[in-house]
């Protein structure tokens, strides 16, 4: 009968399925055991935009550039700025002319020698191309670059700039091989034969959205990397990355896990979560010209109610720390101005007093804006907690609104009254956390233009050493008084590695650099 035939078919396929399952179990999938034991595989969520340093201005692209290129100054170990390709720079009293001497006997990864001509070529190139990612804006003060012999470069600025060496450490100042990089256009990311730098690694292969493969530079002038190469694997979801890390398919992961995943990995055998205070911050911006936020007392009340501890503990599971100034703790010149003025914890009584002085409706209806994907899904949770805290005080009635990043980033202060933003430094110095925010015509259009602050900025840029630090501190105090923004957390730098990977703690510091050449796998 047909039915019996069918029954045979079914049992037959069931047996076959079991056989296949058994075969799979026998050759159980686990880890990248096949292959080079000295190559470290790093997972990351994020996208590379451009590897060519002349048009690169985002953190994920920077992570690939850092092992390949170098600048005159840099942060080889730790957060102290040191000369790298230069041996030192001197400057004129007016801080407008900088003369730098280059290290001798440095070769590019293809064997070409590095000379002052390459340095001039690199800077000229960035300013000529004016890439659409905007990194050239870091070189706004640079008027021209000249060379004086094979190993001396002179930078002519049109404005005094005490932090010029910091600019030299960003990828705007990375030195590229004049023989392989075109002067007028950007190299494609896959053009590995021309992507030549002086760093410890060279780019061997790049597959967009999937992998970047780095192998050691045999012509490197410094200490050889401690591993046999790096493969950076790109993931779209951190959960998949976590599973792969647990299974051993990747050796480490850096950027970005959710707080729940990090808490869980702290308890997972075989994995080690490394963290250190980092320098990325999150803050709330006010458009100080738009009601009701143009009322300083309203802003002060919100400052008194900001639930930093709740956000750090409940939303981020302790992977961020409450922040009391736009300058994160750990950088020279950082103060805790907001703590001094508004206290470490929310203060309902003082908030009520401020709202009384504000003479506004109670509860005051306000709208807070956030962006749901650019900073991760968890950013929605932050604002929900803020809403809860402000509503619970009965002083405010908060409506939350969101917009996708592409629209959000164009609107900001132009459209919104109070909105969320985060910040990754261009260079790890307090200057990058103050000037960008407090200058009039800041990038987020919040209408803040305080003449005292503007003067302080000019002073800071024109001074060095202790005087500069004093100016920075004054700026932070003034900011806490006038409240253009309210910073609320500073994130830890977190990397998770399997227990056989060592060296990660040595690269976790205020620079937020992942120095792959310091890592080893046993």
């Amino acid at each position: 009968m047909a039915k019996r035939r069918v029954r045979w078919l079914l049992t037959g396929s069931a047996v076959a399925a079991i056989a296949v399952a058994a075969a799979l179990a026998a050759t159980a999938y686990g880890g990248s055991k096949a292959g080079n034991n000295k190559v470290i595989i790093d997972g990351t969520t994020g996208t590379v935009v451009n590897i060519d340093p002349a048009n690169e201005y985002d953190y994920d692209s920077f992570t690939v550039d850092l092992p390949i290129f170098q600048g005159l100054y840099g942060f080889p170990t730790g957060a102290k700025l040191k000369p790298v390709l230069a041996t030192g720079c001197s400057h004129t009293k007016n801080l407008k002319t900088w003369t730098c001497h280059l290290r001798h006997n440095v070769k590019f990864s293809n064997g070409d020698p590095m000379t002052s001509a390459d340095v001039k070529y690199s800077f000229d190139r960035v300013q000529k191309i004016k890439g659409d990612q905007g990194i050239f804006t870091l070189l706004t003060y640079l008027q021209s670059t000249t060379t004086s012999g094979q190993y001396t470069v002179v930078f002519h600025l049109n404005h005094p700039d005490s932090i010029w060496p910091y600019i030299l450490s960003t990828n705007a100042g990375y030195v590229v091989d004049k023989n392989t990089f075109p002067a007028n256009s950007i190299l494609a990311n896959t053009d590995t034969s021309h992507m030549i730098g002086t760093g410890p690694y060279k780019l061997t292969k790049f597959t967009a959205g999937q992998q970047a493969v780095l192998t050691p530079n045999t012509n490197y002038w410094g200490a050889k990397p401690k591993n046999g190469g790096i493969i950076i694997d790109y993931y779209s979801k951190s959960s998949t990355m976590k599973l792969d890390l647990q299974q051993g398919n990747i050796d480490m992961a850096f950027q970005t896990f959710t707080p729940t995943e990090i808490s869980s990995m702290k308890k997972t055998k075989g994995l080690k979560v490394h963290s250190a205070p980092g320098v990325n911050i999150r803050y709330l911006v006010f458009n100080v010209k738009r009601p009701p936020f143009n009322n300083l007392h309203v802003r002060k009340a919100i400052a008194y109610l900001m639930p930093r501890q709740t956000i750090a503990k409940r939303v981020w599971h302790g992977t961020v720390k409450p922040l009391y100034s736009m300058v994160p703790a750990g950088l020279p010149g950082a103060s805790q101005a907001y703590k001094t003025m508004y206290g470490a914890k929310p203060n309902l009584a003082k908030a009520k007093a401020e709202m009384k002085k504000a003479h506004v409706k109670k509860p005051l209806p306000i709208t807070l804006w956030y962006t749901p994907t650019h900073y991760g899904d968890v950013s929605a949770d932050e604002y929900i907690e803020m809403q809860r805290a402000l509503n619970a005080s009965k002083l405010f009635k908060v409506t939350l609104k969101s917009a996708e990043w592409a629209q959000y980033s164009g609107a900001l202060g132009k459209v919104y009254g109070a909105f969320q933003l985060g910040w990754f430094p261009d260079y790890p110095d307090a200057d990058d956390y103050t000037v960008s925010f407090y200058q009039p015509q800041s990038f987020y259009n919040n209408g803040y233009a305080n003449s005292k602050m503007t003067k302080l900025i000019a002073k800071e840029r024109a001074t060095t050493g202790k005087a500069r630090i004093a100016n920075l501190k004054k700026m932070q105090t003034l900011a806490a008084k006038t409240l253009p923004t309210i910073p609320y957390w500073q994130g830890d730098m977190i990397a998770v590695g399997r227990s056989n990977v060592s060296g990660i703690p040595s690269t976790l510091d205020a620079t937020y650099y992942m120095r792959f050449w310091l890592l080893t796998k046993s």
Partner: protein
Amino acid sequence: MTGTSLRTYLLTRLALVVPMVFILLTLVFLLMRVAPGNPIQAALGGHVPPAQVKIIEHRLGFDKPLYTQYGDYLWGIVRGNFGTSISDNRPITQIITQNGAATLELTFFAMIVAIVVGVSVGLLAGRFRDTGLDVFGRMFGILIYAMPVFFLGLMAQLVFGVWLGWLPISDQASPINQALLPAHTNIMFIDAIWARNWAALWDVTKHLILPALTLGLVTAGVFIRLVRINVIRTLRDDYIEAARARGIDERKVVYTHAFKNALVPVITIVGLNFAVLLGGAVLTEETFNWPGIGHELVLYVQNRDYAAVQGIIIVFALVVVFVSMLVDFLNAYVDPRIRY
């Protein structure tokens, strides 16, 4: 006579493709430009001063009037230049060949799973209508279709990847193989065979199993229903009655006559559901970190990357249009009644 009308049919269908693509291009162009924000803003807003952003926007032509941008774009397409994506600087053609190949690999194997499971269960359910087998088959089809792809995928990852540890749960191949295997066709399965790297082939196959099974099973749910209906319809046809009346063995009637004819529309079904498969591929690619074109599209939409979104959508639509045209053509070849 048959030849001419078939040719006319083919030509008419082909001729229709051009206006269809044109309409699609225009629709997508308008949709993307209508939304506020542009890719430059997405990349630079948030850390570059607005004055600079404006300069760059002007340089790239984003502030030109809409019809100028439209004209530029069409002219570029005509010359074969689909442009470069703005958010990650990739030529559109490269995105399509590289990521499109990955999606092709996934959908091909998923289609095999869908056909094998869908057709066999559908045939059995239709043949043994209203018996336990039928009910089981249909419930299986309904339940499997009701399960969201990402949910099924997640459970598969947890069970087979994490708890049992039998299978990998992401990517096309292990990182080492991805780095070392030379890419000729960008379909890793074929590339592994090309390089005669059997270890890599086994690795690639293992990586294919979960995503293809997930996507294939969910699609099979659709097939089961359609195949079953076709079988029932065929079994009622006159020639089946006639065959039975002639005294032909029931088994032969069912397997030789009915199934063969019931399977002809399956080609149509497969072709027409290709769009469904491509849609489901997006979710599968997200879940399994498969570097396919659906996943890229989601990212580009988020970044308002006009060039990339337009290019990818056109290709998607072209593929579906050509597949459905092929299917219609096959149908018309087989059944002269359908000739317009």
